[in-house]
């Protein structure tokens, strides 16, 4: 069973990570900006899931559904983005004229 004190510790860790994300958003990270921000968000989400949502207290496989959602989500987003970035801009077919 998790002690009351632990919930406060997790909260302060969440606040610290929030501050870290905030600070790093002003740093010149370039292409790393997105992965870093999302990685910290994932860390915060994990803390909320493990402690506030009680996953760490039980041996029951509730986490399995969270993992499944995460996998499906990743698949959805990766497939959507890789599709859309490879599309060419729309062009009228040869022989048509644009309306005046």
């Amino acid at each position: 069973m998790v002690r009351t004190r632990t919930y406060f510790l997790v909260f302060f860790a969440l606040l610290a990570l929030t501050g870290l994300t905030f600070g790093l958003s002003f740093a010149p990270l370039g292409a790393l900006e997105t992965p870093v921000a999302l990685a910290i968000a994932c860390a915060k989400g994990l803390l909320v899931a493990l402690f506030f949502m009680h996953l760490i207290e039980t041996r029951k496989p509730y986490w399995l559904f969270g993992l499944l959602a995460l996998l499906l989500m990743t698949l959805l987003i990766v497939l959507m983005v890789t599709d859309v970035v490879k599309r060419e801009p729309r062009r009228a077919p040869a022989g048509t004229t644009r309306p005046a």
Partner: protein
Amino acid sequence: MSGAFPFENDARSAHAARLGMWVFLASESMFFAALFGLYAALRANHADGFREGVRHAELAIGTANTAILLASSLVVVLAVDAVRHARPLLARKLLVGAMALGCTFLALKGVEYSHHFTEGIVPGAGATSQGEQEYFNLYYIMTGLHALHVVAGIIVLGWLARRAPTFTHQDEGHVPLELGGLYWHLVDVVWLFLWPLFYLMR
């Protein structure tokens, strides 16, 4: 027939309830995942417009709202903890506190929306480029959907606060409180991803 029918006992009934809640949370996550995917796909082709939009976001309000929701999650888990220590009336006060934090979040969101409306930026119009407009359209849709979830969460917390005296300290004595708490934490986690995408990634 035991009170936990159709389950053999309370422990199995509680396990089934928690399982069902996690399945529901997974489906709610997919609901938002579709919109996060849309954000990624649109931003991939309009990165400059999105960055412009992020620079227009009200960083102070967004950050304050992040801290408010994190605090509300702490308060909700402390309410569960209070019931586990056989203090249901303390739990009731904590749940009301979480509701107040949720209402504060919504009020700040309202202030934010009104600032944008005053500048003429509404869903579908007002931005200076197509990319920036897409950013703001998504901003209204995703934070609006999230706000609806916060409203539903506040109603749930209110219902739980009313029922607080009926919760007992045993593992299976406060399952509705646990489940309602799980929903609130999911709403918090969704915001933890909305915040960097709409406020930080300049």
